[in-house]
């Protein structure tokens, strides 16, 4: 029940982060339990490591990113948090839902198109006409006498104030990949969030499954395979006039777009390092080294794509040799990393030998 024209979540303390989803989840866990989990741990438990490569029908833009799309769901499931995503067709009920939760002192995670958020556009110098509707922020207050909402975003230390209309536009725009659809998340948390050997191993086996056996060719190894083979032909596939935009966008998405550097591989490396407290395995240590190397390779690729864009603008030729070699190295290392994770999962499995049917019946 909304009884006051202004309200805020009083005891919310914001922790800075490197990626919107993991930072929002980290802040929610902190708010409800007082525990400070690392973002890397949340990323890993949410089986965040993945690769997405997609071009929407009728679009000349390629969307690339180094993660999957279900981090919040998978993380919540693994640590016994109840997470419900509610979508609203109309803005009015969508905003009322958020207000009611804030009135009950719940910070609310919502989906937005980041290219509608003024502070984001200003800070990242974002290109116009490029949209992404899966950017998550926390709404922590409102003042309806001023028509303002208070939000926190991963990389901003201070509260950001938005006109309610701007927030509503950012939450409801249909003009983007993964439209936000006024999504708001209900988050019900246990008193403490426990990380165990079992949760680590299950998250690794999920990562493996989602990379190797994805539901569509737009994610996982099939997507990475297509990306590494197609990127050199983007001028032909996406149109020469869009090449610069595609290159700069991919460069941005691999390094600067809240990835923690190296297309999320640095974040995943830190998760593997932390996991060694729970799972002792040579393969885990080796996997961490491979992903550390991958973070460097993806960073290099980001630089190379940016240089290619510069060369394209000035009409200079660019040498594709180093780019090809980097793409080959990335593919090989990604495959090796997954093989090592498979070793960790299989060698650490808690299963025992199955009894024969006779033994089973006699037990």
């Amino acid at each position, binding site marked *: 029940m909304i009884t006051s024209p202004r309200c805020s979540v009083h005891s919310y303390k914001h922790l800075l982060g490197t990626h919107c989803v993991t930072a929002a989840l980290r802040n929610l866990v902190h708010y409800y339990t007082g525990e400070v989990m690392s973002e890397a741990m949340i990323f890993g438990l949410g089986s965040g490591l993945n690769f997405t490569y997609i071009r929407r029908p009728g679009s000349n833009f390629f969307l690339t990113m180094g993660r999957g799309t279900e981090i919040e769901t998978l993380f919540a499931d693994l640590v016994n948090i109840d997470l419900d995503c*509610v979508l609203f067709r109309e803005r009015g009920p969508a905003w009322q839902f958020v207000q009611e939760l804030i009135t009950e002192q719940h910070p609310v995670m919502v989906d937005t198109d980041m290219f509608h958020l003024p502070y984001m556009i200003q800070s990242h110098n974002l290109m116009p006409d490029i949209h992404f509707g899966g950017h998550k922020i926390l709404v922590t207050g409102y003042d309806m006498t001023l028509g303002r909402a208070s939000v926190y975003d991963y990389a901003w230390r201070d509260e950001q104030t938005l006109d309610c209309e701007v927030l509503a536009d950012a939450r409801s725009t249909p003009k983007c990949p993964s439209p936000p659809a006024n999504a708001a998340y209900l988050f019900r*948390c246990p008193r403490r969030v426990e990380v165990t050997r079992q949760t680590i191993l299950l998250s690794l086996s999920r990562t493996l499954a989602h990379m190797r056996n994805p*539901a569509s060719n737009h994610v996982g190894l099939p997507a990475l395979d297509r990306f590494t083979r197609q990127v050199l032909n983007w001028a032909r596939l996406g149109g020469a006039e869009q090449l610069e935009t595609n290159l700069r966008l991919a460069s941005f998405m691999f390094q600067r777009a809240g990835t923690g550097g190296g297309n999320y591989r640095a974040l995943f490396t830190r998760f593997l390092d932390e996991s060694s407290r729970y799972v002792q395995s040579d393969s885990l240590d080796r996997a961490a080294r491979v992903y550390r190397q991958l973070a460097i390779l993806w960073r290099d690729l980001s630089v190379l794509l940016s240089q290619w864009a510069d060369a394209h603008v000035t009409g200079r030729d660019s040498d594709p040799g180093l780019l090809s070699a980097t793409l080959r190295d990335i593919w090989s290392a990604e495959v090796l990393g997954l093989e090592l994770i498979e070793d960790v999962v299989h060698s650490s499995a808690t299963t025992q030998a199955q009894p024969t049917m006779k033994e089973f019946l006699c037990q």
Partner: protein
Amino acid sequence: MDTSGIHSGSWVVGFWARHHGAHFSEASLFGIGRTAWYGFDPTAQDPRFYTYHPNRVMRTLIALNIATAVYRRVTAARLPSPHAELARGFPVLLEVNEARLTPAGSGQDGYCLCYMGQAGDASPELIPVHTPHNVEEPLAVEAGTLVSAWQQPTPLGYQHTVYVPMARTIATSLAHVIPHSISQYVAQMTESLSGERPGGLDGLRAFIRYCRRNDSAVATTLHGALESDGGPHSQRTLMSHFLLEAAAILGQPSLRAVATLYEEIAALWIEVRRSVALKLLPTTICDALDGILQLETAAVGTLARLQS
């Protein structure tokens, strides 16, 4: 093979998985989805008592590593037809109110069914859906009836829940998943979550307290939870069968003793159902519920010890 089901939430995932070449017993899906649960909110305007977890479908799909988009879409007005929502080209799982779908159905929201697509020559006004009782031949439901069963009134509008699972092949090792499911089941039965109605053992405890204070609750709220087919007695039987399967898969025979406890709980739920039907004194029924609480507490405690 008999593919009809007991509990719609686990059956519907199994039905969908079979169409992708993967066969799981209903009991194993019930278990890995951590379906068994108690939930009760005495402060709600229309208090509901749940004997299963509302998020069980999503949890089962996650446990099977199946990428799933779940839409709980709220609209201010009633949908004129389900066609636009179902026209994505994928098989989808829906949650409906069973009583509004078929006259013999229970009044529980969250009854799950599967829509596999429209046959080319079918009338667009008849939507074919598969339910635990209509497995081989789908049930043809009028579009308006399906919308009415599907939309759940909420204070902010009508909520429609649809799951869109996507997988090319399903290759999940139950041996990997079961230990985690059991430990999470213990957690969900023993821990209350922030901002949530009393859940797990606390939920059952709160419900018994409520019944002892409100004689009419037994005839209304409890009666609503005692579905004829997939009610709490069937659910605890499934839990027992899951633990027997887990004992074999994990090579952990001690789980068989816990399975026996769930058989006893199932038997007590049958007794409660009979007592409600015979309109026995509410105190008698509450005493039986207390017996269930004791056995549930013992079962969860044993599982917790085995996990540690």
